[in-house]
């Protein structure tokens, strides 16, 4: 049976363990750039995290020994220490992950608010199985090229900068809604883009000869796979496609890019790994023939690292088709203004 001897000692030890473990996690966040664990500032500028870590660890011990005279009399045994340290560890981890997520959420909200504008008209689309939003640039009376955007199915990645830049360049943009996860199945999912193309060719403002696809995350894999067999798709750009099932299980690395709660949201789409394997996008890259294809990865991408993509694709295939953007990760890539400018320029040149 556990005997905590003195409630004061037990509570103080719990607080010591809690504070020092939070401090240790800040040290880890600063050392490895783990945004998902950091409680102060940015994980890429770790000075504040180091200072907080030192303050919590040194301060925690100083406070404990200054306020707990029971330390030097008969106290807690090993089993009680293990229980208290374990409980404090769970609480410290939960506190760090939740607080860090809240902090990242506030920062992300601030960034999103800055970007809001209404340079384009939007129209909800609902046709047969297709659901999505159509973004229309200013009407010039001529048919326009169109970009179908396949976002990440977990819906965590904002499309705002990309849509704004593409419509700004005169493209019609159709952002496709994947629908509920239970309805996304292979091979039925292969009918998604052909359905979109059929819908778009019925519209007068669309130039059916100039249909491009932009896929993000798993959307990139589906874009490559579908374009491999559908000749109506004239150009494909994929942002951080997986190409390989191994990439769909990032583990701790995802916390380098995002908060814990956003990581959980990203992984809430459970079929990702299975669909990547079934789509086998890599096998369809060569089937695109001479049609333009570009794969963009962030050089800080910890889920689908660019160098791994280069190895997966093979040097020959990757030449001219693979671009690495400095400073961007898997989840930040579609939100970046650099990416959206690059995407818009590339489609302007190739579609």
């Amino acid at each position: 049976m556990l005997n905590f001897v003195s409630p004061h000692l037990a509570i103080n030890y719990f607080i010591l363990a809690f504070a020092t473990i939070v401090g240790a996690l800040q040290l880890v966040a600063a050392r490895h750039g783990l945004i998902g664990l950091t409680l102060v500032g940015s994980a890429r500028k770790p000075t504040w995290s180091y200072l907080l870590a030192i303050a919590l660890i040194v301060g925690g011990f100083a406070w404990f020994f200054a306020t707990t005279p029971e330390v030097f009399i008969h106290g807690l045994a090993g089993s009680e220490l293990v229980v208290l340290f374990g409980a404090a560890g769970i609480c410290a981890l939960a506190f760090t992950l939740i607080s860090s997520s809240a902090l990242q959420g506030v920062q992300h909200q601030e960034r999103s608010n800055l970007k809001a504008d209404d340079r384009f008209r939007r129209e909800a689309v609902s046709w047969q199985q297709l659901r999505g939003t159509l973004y229309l640039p200013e009407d010039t009376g001529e048919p326009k090229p169109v970009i179908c955007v396949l976002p990440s199915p977990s819906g965590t990645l904002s499309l705002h900068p990309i849509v704004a830049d593409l419509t700004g360049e005169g493209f019609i943009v159709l952002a496709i809604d994947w629908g509920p996860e239970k309805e996304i199945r292979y091979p039925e999912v292969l009918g998604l883009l052909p359905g979109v193309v059929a819908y778009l060719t019925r519209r007068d403002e669309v130039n059916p000869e100039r249909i491009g696809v932009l896929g993000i995350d798993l959307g990139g894999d589906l874009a490559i796979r579908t374009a491999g067999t559908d000749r109506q798709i004239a150009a494909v750009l994929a942002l951080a496609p997986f190409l390989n099932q191994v990439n769909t299980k990032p583990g701790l690395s995802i916390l380098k890019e995002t908060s814990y709660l956003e990581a959980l949201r990203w992984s809430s789409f459970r079929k990702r790994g299975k669909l990547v394997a079934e789509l086998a996008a890599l096998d369809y890259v060569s089937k695109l023939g001479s049609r333009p294809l570009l794969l963009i990865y962030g050089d800080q991408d910890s889920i689908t690292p660019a160098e791994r993509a280069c190895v997966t694709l093979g040097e020959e295939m990757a030449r001219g088709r693979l671009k690495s953007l400095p400073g961007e990760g898997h989840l930040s890539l579609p939100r970046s203004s650099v990416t959206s400018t690059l995407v818009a320029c590339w489609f302007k040149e190739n579609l």
Partner: protein
Amino acid sequence: MSFDLQLLQWINNLAGLNVFLDGLMRLLVNDYFLTTAMSLILVIFWFEGQDRDRRERNQRAILRAIIVLFVANIVLKLCNLVYFRPRPFVDHEVNLLFYRPTDSSFPSNPATVGFSVAAAIWLYNRRLGALLLLLATLFGLSRIYCGVHYPSDIIAGALLGALSAYLVVRKGGFIDPIISLIIRTGRRLYLA
């Protein structure tokens, strides 16, 4: 007089000569400072490693160290059941800088705990293992300095910890599936 007692007196007679050294030993000898410090080092080590494979190796080392700790403690309790050795302050005049523990002096519980974890980590990572072995040695030395253990208690505790570590790490392959399951679960939760 036995060598064990001579060594105890030689180290313990340093107590009271220097206020700073006494203060340092009081900090090291209690059950909270070094145990918590070593645990924090393991928490940090859990996240070490540039890629998934290196991290997994570290995490396996930590999980094995925890198992080693439990095994060593069970053996220690068994030893205490069959053999009781009074503390040095019971039979001899020593400079006592700590409270009077009532449990058996042999083998040393803190030395067993410290050396079992340190040796288990040392078998995976020499540099971190050496740091932990240094901390465990300081833990043991402080117990002699403060008059609550004979040197032979510490040596026996260190051997017990190291032997447990060797057996669990080198011969305990049967626990690998449990360790793999914990790491897989941690990865699914983005914590490994």
